[in-house]
């Protein structure tokens, strides 16, 4: 089996056994990126020299008996994570010239564990999008069908992993930005509990919702990555003091006695029958393994999209006020005065979707509208969170589809923001409540992957990874790779 068809876990075993070196591994994947990525556009920056230096250091560490958890394993970081000495663009013209002077905690931790960064992946601008079409660097193509989107906002990470240009990548998820692209590209992606992974050095979109997580081809790989990414960070005041579980050790628990909540609201009458039946077939597989299905209600999740599109833009309008053309980032030519500099730098530096969200957020927070929009959205957020809390009194995990549809055609929704926002209808409630959730492939329709979602209670990442791993032990959907690039 070629190296790029192995999982991260298998590559780790190969490195341990001396079947190949970290340098050989890095060179193999870098060559694939060089050959194939021009068709996908999944990378914004490829950090070849740095990757080879890190790979050599990993080989030396292994020879010295000092191999870390991810020693020598190639990964890519979403271009939202600050990487010292490397452009960190967040998919925006605003930061096209920004060479970060520091590493994000996630980057630092994975590097300390021995990971080899091959590059920075493309993304929707400032993580605002569900199709990866809002990037300043152009859209990313889905390797299952290059006329379709890979989902977003972590679309570059998803496409790169699905095309086996890199065995794993980081993503961030504010409203579904790890899970929805994972579903649309047939990979496994996990959004941890809010506060589980440090947000320090991760460029902020909506601070009460943003969370980083792993994207790979299996739940076992996500478990390995999450172990390296997680943990308290004194530099992020929302980072929690919970001990980090041994996620890999939890994978092999049998599922007998597991109670799976099936919310009616995740199977609306309008849902594509084929997606509903794919999701139900996956749950039936888990039933065979001893799980029981429990019908539950989440009556307020129906309002999660409207609540999110007040709260997230409101927080974004505040977070993005820092981009003013003074200390870093884009500045317009020949400003007439200070105000002209602010306004033109921001208008020229930000793309259309980012500006729309800033305007919606500014409006929702403005005098006279705060109570009607922002405060009301926060109250609805409480109702949604309470729905999940009640459900988790009866069940261990909650399951449903990740996305109401498979990968859609490039350009199909780019003129209609509200239709695009509905792509995240099943993922957003989880962010509002701060819960962990995973998407994994569970079927194919018309040659395109379908993802299902497993939602856990707070800090039960180990449990949802266990459920996903057991499903993946019994099925092979996660092993299916696109034909794209197989000749390379």
């Amino acid at each position, binding site marked *: 089996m070629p190296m790029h068809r192995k999982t991260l876990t298998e590559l780790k075993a190969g490195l341990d056994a001396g079947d190949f070196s970290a340098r050989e591994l890095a060179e193999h994947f870098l060559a694939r990126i060089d050959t194939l990525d021009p068709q996908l556009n999944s990378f914004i920056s490829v950090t070849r020299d740095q990757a080879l230096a890190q790979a050599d250091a990993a080989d030396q560490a292994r020879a010295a008996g000092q191999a870390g958890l991810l020693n020598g394993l190639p990964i890519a970081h979403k271009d939202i994570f600050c990487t010292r000495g490397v452009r960190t663009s967040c998919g925006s013209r605003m930061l096209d*010239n*920004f*060479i970060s*002077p520091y590493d994000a905690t996630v980057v630092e931790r994975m590097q300390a564990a021995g990971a080899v960064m091959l590059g920075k992946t493309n993304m929707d601008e400032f993580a605002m999008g569900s199709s990866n079409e809002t990037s300043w660097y152009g859209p990313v193509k889905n390797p299952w069908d290059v006329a379709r989107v890979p989902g977003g906002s972590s679309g570059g990470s998803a496409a790169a992993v699905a095309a086996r240009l890199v065995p794993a990548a980081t993503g961030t998820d504010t409203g579904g930005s790890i899970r929805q692209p994972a579903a649309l590209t047939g990979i496994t992606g996990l959004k941890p509990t*809010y506060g589980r992974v440090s947000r320090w050095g991760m460029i902020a979109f909506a601070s*009460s919702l943003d969370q980083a997580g792993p994207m790979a081809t299996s739940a076992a790989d996500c478990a390995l990555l999450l172990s390296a990414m997680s943990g308290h960070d*004194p530099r992020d*005041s*929302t980072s929690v003091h919970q001990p980090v579980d041994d996620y890999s050790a939890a994978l092999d628990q049998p599922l007998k006695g597991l109670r799976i909540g099936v919310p009616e609201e995740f199977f609306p009458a309008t849902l594509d029958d084929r997606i509903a039946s794919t999701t139900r077939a996956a749950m039936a597989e888990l039933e065979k393994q001893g799980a029981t299905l429990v019908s539950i209600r989440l009556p*307020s999740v129906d*309002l999660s*999209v*409207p609540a999110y599109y*007040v709260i997230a833009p409101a927080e974004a*309008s505040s977070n993005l*006020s820092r981009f003013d*053309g*003074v*200390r*870093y980032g*884009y500045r317009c030519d020949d400003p*007439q*005065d*200070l105000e*002209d*500099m*602010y*306004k033109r730098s*921001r*208008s020229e530096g*930000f793309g259309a979707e980012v500006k*729309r969200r*800033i*305007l*919606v957020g*500014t*409006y*929702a927070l*403005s005098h006279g*509208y705060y109570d*009607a*929009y922002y*405060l*009301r*959205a*926060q*109250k*609805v*957020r*409480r*109702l949604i*969170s309470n729905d999940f809390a009640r459900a988790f009194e009866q069940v261990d995990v909650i399951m449903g589809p990740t996305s109401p549809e498979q990968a859609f055609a490039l350009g199909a929704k780019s003129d*209609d*923001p*509200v239709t695009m*926002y509905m792509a995240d209808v099943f993922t957003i409630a989880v962010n509002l*409540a*701060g*819960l962990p959730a995973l998407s994994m492939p569970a079927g194919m329709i018309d040659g395109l992957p379908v993802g299902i979602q497993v939602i856990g209670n*707070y800090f039960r990442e180990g449990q949802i990874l266990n459920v996903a791993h057991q499903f993946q032990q019994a099925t092979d959907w996660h092993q299916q790779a696109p034909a794209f690039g197989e000749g390379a």
Partner: protein
Amino acid sequence: MALDPKALSGVAHLARLHLDPADTDALTERLNSILGMVDRLQEADVADVAPLAHPLDATQPLRDDTVSEADIREQVQPLAPATGDGCYLVPRVIE
């Protein structure tokens, strides 16, 4: 609630964004379609519901009031569009 082009121009000023007059009508329409979707929030019965600002019941951690950051001016100032004598340069504010 809906925006008109005049209200939009006020919001754009608050957000320090320059609007292209040629795009204002189309932008107003798109923002109103978003606000229309968001208006479904009015359906919710939120009487006696406390707002949720943060998903976990967390308190703001405190640290000792001591200097913890080194002076990194030399690393960060080269990122700025314009600097001089260790300061950030912007267009003249006071004539």
